[in-house]
């Protein structure tokens, strides 16, 4: 048959029945476990180093300062109406993040605004607390529904 290499047509060596050692018998289970363990370690490390609390403003404020106020966290909430200040030449945005309990948190963000950003929209922020109780967001995502929402509807 074409494409076959000649060495593959050699008859297999006859296997003498012999007692297999512990390693020989279990090596595939061991190999599989090693792979599984390696992936497990990767997942564990990944979560430990990149996992972030996902909090509302109230939850964030309720957290004791020692456990994570300085840590990177992810905050979800609404952009409070009337709080948005956008300075286009320095690309600096300030607004208040608001949750359903009415708690607010001043936010500072530098960078490009997503298309769907506007007062009242739901956003997800990633960042940490800086001085003066201001939350500095590294990233700002808007939650836009794929479902079409009519204007003024």
């Amino acid at each position, binding site marked *: 048959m074409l494409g076959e290499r000649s060495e593959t047509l050699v008859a297999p060596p006859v296997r003498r029945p012999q007692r297999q050692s512990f390693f020989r018998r279990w090596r595939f289970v061991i190999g599989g476990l090693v*792979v599984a363990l390696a992936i497990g370690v990767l997942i564990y490390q990944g979560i430990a180093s990149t996992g972030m609390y996902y909090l509302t403003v109230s939850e964030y404020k309720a957290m004791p300062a020692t456990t994570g106020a300085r840590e990177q966290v992810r905050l979800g909430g609404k952009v409070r109406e009337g709080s948005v200040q956008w300075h286009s030449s320095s690309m600096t945005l300030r607004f208040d993040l608001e949750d359903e309990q009415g708690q607010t948190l001043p936010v500072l963000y530098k960078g*490009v605004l997503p298309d769907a950003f506007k007062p009242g929209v739901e956003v997800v922020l990633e960042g940490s607390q800086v001085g003066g109780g201001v939350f500095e967001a590294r990233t700002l995502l808007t939650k836009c529904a794929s479902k079409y929402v009519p204007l003024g509807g």
Partner: protein
Amino acid sequence: MVDVGRAALALALIIAVFGGAAPVLGARSGFPELLVAGRRAVYVVGALVSVAGLLLLYAFLTHDFILQYVAQYSARDMALIYTISAFWAGQEGSLLLWAWVLALFASLVAWQNRRRHPDLMPYVQAVLMVNQTFILGVLVLLSDPFAKLQFTPADGQGLNPLLENMGMFFHPTTLYLGYVGFTVPFAFAMAALIKGKLGDEWIRSTRRWTLVAWFFLTLGNLFGAQWAYVELGWGGYWAWDPVESASFMPWLVGTAYLHSVMVQQRRGMLKVWNIALIIATYSLVLFGTFLTRSGVLASVHTFGQSGLGPFFLAFIGLTLAVSLGLLIDRLPLLRSEHELDSFLSRESSFLFNNLILVGAAFATFWGTVFPLISEAVRGVKITVGAPFFNQVNGPIFLALIALMGICPLISWRKASPDNLARNFLYPLAGTLVLVALLFIAGVREFYALLAFGACTLVATTLLLEFFRGVRARGRIYGENPPRALPRLIWHNKPRYGGYIVHLGVILIAVGVAGSSLFQAVGEANLKPGESLQLRQYTLINRGVAEYPTATRRVVAASVDVVKDGKVVDTLSPAKLFHPNYENPVSEVAIRTTPQEDLYVILAGWADDYSSATFKAYVNPLIVWLWIGGVVLLLGTAIAVWPDRREVRQSVSARQTVPTVTSGLAGVTR
């Protein structure tokens, strides 16, 4: 008209129930009439769902806005192609599309096998019809695409402009074809379990279905990535959003399945594993639909959160319980015919490839549902994002690529040292040379060297395989290489098609590695005449202007791209304002070259247009991702292409001496 569509769905639901029950009753009680009636019922369901689908399509084309769904997702001024794609822009239409594809697939399966597999087919049909019943039940009872408004609006609300892209015409359709396609091998696996016929008959008869489903699932993912890249305007193509993970997980496990069935056909091993994989693939398909439809996870594109979540969850639970229950019950029948001989064998490298693919799927799954798990277990929501998936999946995929290079080089059963030395010499040498060259050229990133090294290993391995095949044909038939290469591929379609798929994967890996490891990004607020420097490019703002078009208002910038002191291109990134959509839509400008993409976004501007904000990315090598996608699909098409010799081989291969150990016989069935 509209009521006809609804009636067709309701009738199809009832007949689907009959179509599922009749063949099983027929097989158990020995009434062949029931078998025939059951098969006809499947055809009737196919016809009825087609009627419903065509009616909805007709309603879209004729702008029949009395239908709530049509009014919600289309408008009179929409281009024809988007009017058609509005069919699956929302939940009801998506589910109808699913039901339609499933009904057509079920009919095709019934027709293909009308004289084949008389023992399996009743159960295959039953499983297909259970799924059909579920989806039709949801359509009829919970999510009616034919719901009417109280009055007929003058115009519809139109499509979300983000969906007005060719990618959104093909992405959902291909994804659904892939999703639904996996129902067929799943149904055959279940039938094999029920009948206890657990040889490779069920695998052989679904090989082509599996490949076609995989083809479409791959295509769907690629179209999704392409759409995200050109339309969403954030410089990337893959964000590890739950919705993306949802379609990537079945792809990973489905890929593992494609490989492990070869081991069963070839050596009669991994039987339990294969059934477990197809169960996992199908459950992940359902889970993906559940994720996108339930809104349990925060996604950037949360689809309309509907009440369908619990129903999907219940159906997934039912599917898993029944299929795993059956699998455990049939375990004694699933004994391996052989044992693994050696670590250094083709089958063991397949096994590890499988473990790694499933591991990647598990890591993706874990990261996706982790917020739910942490909330349930610890009471706090901990989320992981793209950094987690990249950090975890990066090494996993590297290992996978390395294994892709090794796998075709190792013979079945047990590789001899001679075999290894001969096969590995050139690929390893090539890899070392390339890594050394990259190092000298100044690439010092450990990951990059590893990734490009692994890619070279695979590429040289594959090219060597082609080279050897061509040389063998030259020796035997005296053909010159340009003549021998196409013949080589054409006469061993599954094998060389598979190799071409691997080449495509390598090109994709090169694109992914290049664009994620060497991406550069810059942003600046520029007055006209001012410039932004990014790598070797200088971007000069030539001014921003606003102008109306027939359907929308456009704000566009003109940006000169200067490279090596010359203006090489003028780009015009823009934002579009649609009259009936609240947010502007970024229209990015992309300059593609084989080395890299320059990707420019107009992010904002001063009210008097005296300055504008730009964000620009340099994405190295990214075009190879799309080229790799085309190569991969081409390879799959070759592997799927009907082969006259297939039937003959499938009969003879079982009797072949098991030491004929190229990949050839194993993959041709």
